[in-house]
């Protein structure tokens, strides 16, 4: 049996409300709250980035993989679009911090919002092929939206880590599928600070087409239907898209509620559906089936069907749970502090 041996998610403490952003740009907060189902989003502190969040998520995953020696990890892959270095891997820092070096394969992935599920996909394959005994996949981001752009209301920070292996499995992988086309709905050119996007083009031909096509292929491969799953989780660029796509596919609100974090977390990009999955695993019971489809602009979707095992109940309380972190004493920022934290203020060059 191949699957998840340990998992963990990390949510920064800082938040900013939709009203606070809308106030600065003269926008109607209610239309964003109603239209995109967003209330607030997480913000990284100035001393937090993809690497720091990945280390914390990986440490939580190791706690839930009770007794796993980090030296047994044969691979570490981190998927993000906000790697702190343009050249120098994030994975080496994380591997060193958790004590997994030096006998480990390491690579950073990038595929807009699905780089995290890519890492999960590849680590599952390596374990399945017996190339490595255990492998660590991390998805996370400190995503940036241009000031005043619609993206600024959703771009958030967080990370989730998954250790894949053959024994001590807490959720078995039953089926996977990937669906990819060349669809330029969202991009960031080299050396550009903020991404650009195709506005409404990011909807039907991009997010909805890829998520539904991947999901339908997964139904066909596995011979399943929405009613066979206790939970479902999709990429969450905002609150509305995953809700709408779940209805298109025949899932109910009850099936997506637990992993539907976007209304108060925002879009953590490569961390999005992996963090939603972590919130589901926090409450799942043995035998539950979980349907997961990510989405990354550019564009593609990775689909997974997980079946939760008996071991889940032993590990859920071994590390902080995702919704606990989301709800525990958030620190709300005003826009000025947020702009400083996100380095949106241009300062004088030091001489």
């Amino acid at each position, binding site marked *: 049996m191949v699957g998840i041996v340990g998992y963990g998610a990390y949510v920064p403490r800082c938040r900013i409300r939709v009203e606070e952003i809308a106030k600065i740009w003269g926008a109607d907060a209610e239309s964003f709250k109603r239209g995109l189902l967003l209330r607030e989003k997480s913000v990284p*502190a100035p*001393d937090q*980035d993809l*690497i*720091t969040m990945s280390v914390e998520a990986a*440490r939580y995953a190791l706690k839930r993989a009770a007794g796993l020696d980090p030296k047994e990890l044969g691979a570490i892959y981190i998927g993000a679009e906000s790697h702190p270095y343009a050249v120098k891997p994030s994975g080496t820092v994380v591997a*060193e*911090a*958790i004590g997994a070096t030096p006998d480990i394969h390491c690579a950073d992935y990038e595929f807009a919002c699905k780089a995290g599920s890519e890492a999960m996909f590849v680590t599952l394959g390596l374990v399945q092929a017996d190339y490595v005994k255990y492998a660590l996949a991390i998805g996370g981001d400190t995503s940036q939206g241009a000031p005043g752009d619609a993206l600024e209301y959703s771009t958030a920070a967080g990370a989730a880590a998954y250790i894949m292996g053959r024994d001590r499995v807490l959720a078995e992988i039953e089926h996977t599928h990937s669906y990819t086309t060349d669809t330029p709905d969202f991009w960031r050119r080299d050396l550009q600070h903020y991404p650009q996007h195709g506005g409404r083009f990011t909807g039907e031909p991009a997010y909805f087409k890829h998520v539904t096509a991947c999901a339908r292929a997964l139904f066909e491969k596995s011979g399943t239907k929405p009613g066979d799953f206790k939970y479902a989780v999709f990429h969450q660029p905002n609150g509305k898209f995953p809700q709408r796509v779940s209805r298109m596919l025949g899932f109910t609100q009850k099936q997506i509620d637990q992993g539907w974090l976007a209304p108060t977390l925002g879009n953590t990009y490569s961390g999005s559906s992996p963090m939603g999955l972590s919130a589901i695993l926090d409450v799942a019971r043995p035998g539950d089936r979980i349907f997961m489809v990510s989405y990354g602009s550019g564009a593609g979707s990775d689909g997974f069907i997980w079946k939760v095992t008996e071991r889940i109940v032993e590990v859920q309380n071994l590390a902080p749970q995702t919704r606990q972190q989301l709800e525990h004493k958030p620190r709300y920022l005003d826009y000025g502090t947020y702009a*400083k934290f996100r380095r949106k203020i241009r300062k004088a060059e030091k001489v």
Partner: protein
Amino acid sequence: MITARYWREMPQRYRYEAGKCVKCGYVAFPPRLICPVCQAREFQTVTLANTGKIETFTVIRVAPSGFEDEVPYAMAVIKLDDGVQVTAQVVDVDLDEIKIGDRVRVEFRRISQDGEAGVIFYGYKFVPA
């Protein structure tokens, strides 16, 4: 901080590794070559506890170079649950509420960077437990 020094100090900055004197049990953090208690030279690597309490603290309002944008921030002496004392920043805390005796736990954070184009230095800070 120069890159080579940062690289040498990774075991203590990243994984909180200390040296425990094999002869008298003194725990040196950061590790030392000679035990200041019994002068022995043999140490065993141990990992420090990741939780503790604030023994004392101060709020920095005039920061050293490289930390100017972080003011005001708290620096504290923290007594870890294994008895070792470390000095570190306490973050994610309201400075009006921080007090001696508060329980804290370690988190991995950015400490500083060698300018906008240089190496980023990571290490430990503490947050409310």
